[in-house]
């Protein structure tokens, strides 16, 4: 229980009580002394009643632990009165980290009888940038009936909240990776494949991936057994994210990490909304690996992992793609989100050739790191940066691969929804 907020009339009441008392004593006026004592009694009663029923009040917060930027979020506060007194004019203050107006206050005017509870909900906007925030702690407070004293109690209810970047529907993605079905469709078929759906267990054959070994079945049978999965009718969408430390450039909302995360989130969102299963691969100091899956819960998991990504890895994007290429499903689409145009085009060409031979659909999204303020590398001249960019665009044109180069001058909110985002190269 801390502090007291001064009522606007509290000071006046103090002066009135003191003035009447002094004047009464000076003039021997019983009425003035009595009036002074009456005011003093107000203070005494107010001080006694300032925390009336406060100890019996409990508050539980219920809020979904994730939201998108600029979302309106409803936070439920369950106010319970476990005390013996009726509660009235109860103020609950909550700290909502994802909002600029971080302190949210709700009033329960009462009466809230003992052993009763009421659900209050405040609604607020997630006005901050994407990232991890906290919600809480909570304060619950009451006044005396005259508002002369205020008492409040701090409740240590702090919960994390993930704020995902605002996503944009990338309409150009549909033209590259198949159409969304309006009618119900089978997502997989009960024959051996690589979907996320479980088909059964069989004996190990030489060449099977060790990661598919079913260890409990192997322990029971005493010989290697592997899981079999159904074949995917809608091939998964794979997002490769470049988290090499040398790609760091720019600050704040104009940084390569910002562009990578926002573009990646929009790609995942669009693919998920089209019914595709999505997976994410990246190599920072901590690996970013989200296995294939579909649905809102999986999207939320993928976005959660994505906003925790840091550009502190040592693996270049071509190395990363080469490493995971054998695990990509035939016929699936893979988006490569890189943070620099200073790449070995010959190697990229080799990778694209491999994609073509394995029936994979590549999608190249390169963030022009040279256009951002350099952090860990020397600044390149404007002509050199433009030369690299043009060379890369020309390479995309010649290879006939859908792709785009995003510079600092391009606003993602306007660029990503464009139908011709990936050009007409394919």
């Amino acid at each position: 229980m801390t502090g007291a907020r001064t009522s606007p009339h509290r000071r006046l009441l103090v002066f009135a009580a003191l003035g009447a008392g002094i004047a009464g004593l000076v003039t021997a006026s019983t009425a003035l002394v009595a009036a002074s004592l009456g005011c003093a009694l107000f203070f005494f009663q107010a001080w006694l009643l300032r925390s009336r029923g406060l100890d019996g009040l409990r508050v539980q917060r219920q809020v979904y632990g994730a939201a998108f930027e600029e979302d309106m979020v409803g936070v439920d506060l369950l106010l319970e009165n476990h005390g013996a007194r009726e509660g009235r004019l109860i103020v609950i203050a909550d700290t909502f980290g994802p909002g600029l107006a971080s302190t949210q206050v709700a009033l329960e005017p009462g009466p809230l009888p003992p052993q009763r509870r009421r659900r209050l909900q405040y609604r607020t906007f997630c006005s901050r940038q994407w990232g991890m925030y906290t919600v809480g702690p909570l304060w619950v407070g009451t006044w005396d009936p005259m508002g002369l004293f205020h008492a409040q109690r701090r409740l240590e209810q702090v919960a994390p909240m993930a704020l995902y970047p605002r996503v944009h529907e990338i309409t150009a993605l549909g033209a590259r990776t198949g159409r969304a079905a309006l009618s119900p469709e089978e997502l997989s078929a009960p024959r051996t494949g690589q979907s996320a759906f479980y088909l059964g267990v069989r004996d190990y054959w030489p060449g099977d991936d060790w990661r598919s070994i079913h260890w409990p079945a192997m322990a029971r049978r005493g010989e290697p057994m592997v899981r079999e999965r159904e074949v995917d009718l809608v091939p998964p969408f794979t997002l490769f994210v470049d988290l090499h430390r040398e790609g760091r450039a720019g600050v704040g909302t104009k940084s390569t990490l910002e562009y990578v995360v926002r573009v990646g989130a929009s790609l995942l969102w669009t693919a998920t909304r089209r019914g595709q299963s999505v997976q994410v691969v990246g190599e920072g100091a901590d690996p970013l690996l989200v296995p294939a899956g579909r649905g809102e819960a999986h999207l939320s998991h993928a976005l959660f992992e994505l906003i925790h990504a840091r550009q502190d890895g040592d693996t270049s994007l071509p190395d990363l793609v080469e490493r995971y290429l054998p695990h990509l499903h035939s016929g699936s689409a893979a988006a490569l989100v890189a943070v620099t145009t200073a790449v070995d085009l010959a190697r990229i060409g080799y990778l694209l050739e491999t994609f073509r031979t394995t029936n994979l659909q590549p999608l190249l999204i390169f963030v022009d790191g040279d256009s951002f303020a350099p952090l860990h590398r020397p600044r390149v001249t404007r002509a050199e940066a433009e030369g690299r960019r043009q060379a890369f665009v020309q390479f995309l044109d010649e290879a006939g691969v859908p792709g785009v180069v995003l510079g600092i001058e391009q606003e993602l909110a306007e660029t990503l929804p464009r139908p011709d985002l990936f050009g007409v190269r394919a």
Partner: protein
Amino acid sequence: VSTPAGDDRAAIDAARLGMVYFLSLSSVTNAVQAWTPSSGPWVFLAWAVALAASLLAAERVAPALETIDAVRRNRILVLSAIAYFGLVLPSMVSAVTNPISGPTPTLTNVLAILQAAFLVSSRLSEGIGAVLTNALLLSLLACLRGGFVGGEAAVVAVASLGCFLVFDHYSRTLAAYPAGPGSRLGLAWKDTAAMVLPAVALVSLLVVAVPAEPPPGRTISVRRSGERDIDWRILRAVMIVWVGGTSAVYVAGRFMRRRRPDEEAILEVLDPIRGHVERIVPPPEAQTPVAYPGSRGRIVRAYARVLSEAAQSGVPRAPGVTADEFAHVVGEPRGPVASLTDAFVRARYGPTDPTETDVLAAESAAAEVIESLRRRGLRDRPRPPAHQVS
């Protein structure tokens, strides 16, 4: 300022307005009654009308006053405060030190007129500190008169001040935090009674127990009724004026603050959504163990004792673990554990009741297992098997 339909903020605001009026009117009438000998019922009625008109005029001139910019408004307030205290404080000191021959009657009339003026301009500032200060000074003057009038002024001043503070608190709080529809007027009245009645009782007790004689040498109207210091005719008129005036101001306040059907809210705020009041569901009570009668019960109780001892030894039986799996977990001594488990399964699920021999054998086995568990202690307790997932 208008309030949404279904919200009793309008009622609370109107009640607060009524309390401001009651505080002003009671202080003015008490001071006039104390220091103006010629005051009759019509004078009080005239003051009641004048103060009500001032208060309601303040509601009308409020939009015009709000257009004055903050700098100019603050300048006006500061100058007014300097002029007010420069004029009033010396007069108050003179009145307190020499109430009979001092400027008290004149000061009373000046303060009463200022009270009306402060009510008109009360919306110039955010609070109503000037109205309150002036009203308290008028009450102080009335108390200085002594006698019944002084005592009555003290009681009414404390009561009106207490009522105003409670309703002002409700009004400010409900204005600051949107609370949604509901009735709080009754709550405010309950709080008012709880806070004001003890103070009124205390003040009344004091002025009755230690009555102050009015200052000598001053003839005022209330003394004409004879030996007593009470003029019931005046007192009745004052009471009627207070109650009638306050009620009229409350009704007028409700009328003026109603929301017109075609009027839109000035600012759309996200009011918190409030659910219904529900009873807190107490946590479920612990299930009472099922009583097994006869020989089956004796074996089950023996097995339960082993479970309890095993739990204390660090090997609790998980809800999904069967008796045979638990026997495997406990391990040693294998013979007694196996026979006790077998007896328990037959007693719990078997078609026939166990014999006395079976019961004695099970109890003996249970005793051995318990003894073994106690000897073993926590250090070399058996480990549960690894959880297997298929």
